[in-house]
């Protein structure tokens, strides 16, 4: 009798082990390059473990432009940044996720209503950051697009309202992604603070070298302009979904690179060995190229 009881207990224990809360389906993408620890773990703690639709097509990441619709022209504002909104979990009427834009990764949570085939959601960011606000958006039933608005909590910000219409996009790291020819015809928007009078134009070199694909030698980089080197190096970060805090590089990737989607604010642990070596090499020649402007010495 005791033996049978023990066996029943043992079997039921083993059976219950299989019901681990499988939140993996509701996390963004399936690649190893996805968002780093802290923001995600707080979301996991907040989401209710019951009644989650883990296979909802609505879950995942959506990318596109985050355009200013209400702004103060006298202030220094950015008209459009690229944003990724990630819907991480949906409950019966709750919705949780986070957004990554301009170097900020902020969680949001709120409620939604089913409206026909779409989901209409009202969510809020925590509120303890000066750039926090509230999103109001509609997700289509197939989970292919999100569109809506965002309103800031702080009415004194340069931009108090933004609008967006994003498309579902799953992040995939691809070392072979190069830069489109558009990039070579542009200049760096933000001036180098050391040389505020100089407009740094890029050249076709930015499309020629992919610093993630193969190990570079000094012959590849020694005769390149600083602006080109900087973009080539930052393209490595962009391939990993790095969200640029600074406008200087952000404007290039947000505006000219279609495959780019911001996903992480810290991608250092994702860099490959080839990339790390190339970053070091490029930085050396970037410094060297910079010193050639307005400096006497060698």
């Amino acid at each position, binding site marked *: 009798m005791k033996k049978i009881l023990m066996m029943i207990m043992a079997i039921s224990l083993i059976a219950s082990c299989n019901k681990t809360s499988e939140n993996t389906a509701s996390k963004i993408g399936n690649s190893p390059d996805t968002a780093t620890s802290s923001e995600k773990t707080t979301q996991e703690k907040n989401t209710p473990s019951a009644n989650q639709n883990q296979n909802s097509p609505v879950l995942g990441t959506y990318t596109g432009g985050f355009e200013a619709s209400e702004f103060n022209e006298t202030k220094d504002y950015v008209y459009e940044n690229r944003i990724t909104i990630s819907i991480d979990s949906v409950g019966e009427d709750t919705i949780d996720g986070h957004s990554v834009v301009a170097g900020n990764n902020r969680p949001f949570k709120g409620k939604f209503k089913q409206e026909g085939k779409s989901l209409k959601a009202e969510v809020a960011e925590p509120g303890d950051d000066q750039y926090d606000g509230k999103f109001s958006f509609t997700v289509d039933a197939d989970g292919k697009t999100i569109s809506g608005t965002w309103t800031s909590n702080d009415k004194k910000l340069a931009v108090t309202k933004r609008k967006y219409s994003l498309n579902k996009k799953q992040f995939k790291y691809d070392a072979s992604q190069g830069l489109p020819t558009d990039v070579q015809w542009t200049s760096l928007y933000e001036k180098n603070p050391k040389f505020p009078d100089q407009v740094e134009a890029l050249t076709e070199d930015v499309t020629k070298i992919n610093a993630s694909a193969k190990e570079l030698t000094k012959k590849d980089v*020694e005769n390149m*302009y600083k602006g080109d080197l900087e973009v080539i190096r930052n393209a490595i970060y962009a391939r990993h979904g790095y969200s640029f805090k600074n406008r200087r590089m952000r404007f290039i990737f947000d505006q000219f690179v279609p495959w780019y989607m911001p996903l992480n604010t810290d991608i250092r642990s994702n860099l490959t060995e080839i990339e790390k070596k190339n970053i070091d090499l490029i930085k*050396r020649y970037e410094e*060297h190229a910079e010193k050639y402007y*307005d400096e*006497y*010495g060698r």
Partner: protein
Amino acid sequence: MVSKFWAALLLIIYGFFSYLLVTISLQYIPYDTDVAFLRIKQDVIDILFYKLAFFTHVYTAVFVIPAGFTQFSGYIRRKFPLIHKYVGRVYAFVVIFLAGPSGFYMGIFANGGISAQISFCLLAILWIYFTVLAVSRVKQGNIKSHREFLIRSFALTLSAITLRAWKYLIVFAFEPRPMDVYEIVAWLGWIPNLIIAEIIIRKFVKSKKSNEYFD
């Protein structure tokens, strides 16, 4: 040749650039194989002779600078002949045995391709050659020839200043690519200097006029 006014002006300009050269050399103290210029020489810094040559050059070349202040002064040469003699010896020793040979070896690995490498090696050879001849002439008592060879030698010493000045101007005016600049200034840095030296020798030293500063 030069009145006291121009002499003073030249000395002030020389003093300013000498100061800059000293600050460049100071970048390499304390000893570090990955600082300043060496940041783009990591592919050769592990070669023992390159390391030896590089640090010999950056640590000793500055000692040719004082000669620019003392050796061209007739006043110092007459009143303090020992200063002329010993500063001269330091100059010659550094060029012939330290900065010259090390410059030649570094030239083999110069940035800017084969053209720049040839230029720097040629520069080093001529620098040593003119200085050796200058020493030999003074030992023979041939002062005129001693002066002429030192004007040439010092013109090449000044390439440390002129090469960088050209680099600054060319980048300012044309913004070429980094190694392209190197290629250009590798020659521009010293050829005009030699040409001017020859002009000075022919116009002023060979003439019978007595020179205020340079005599």
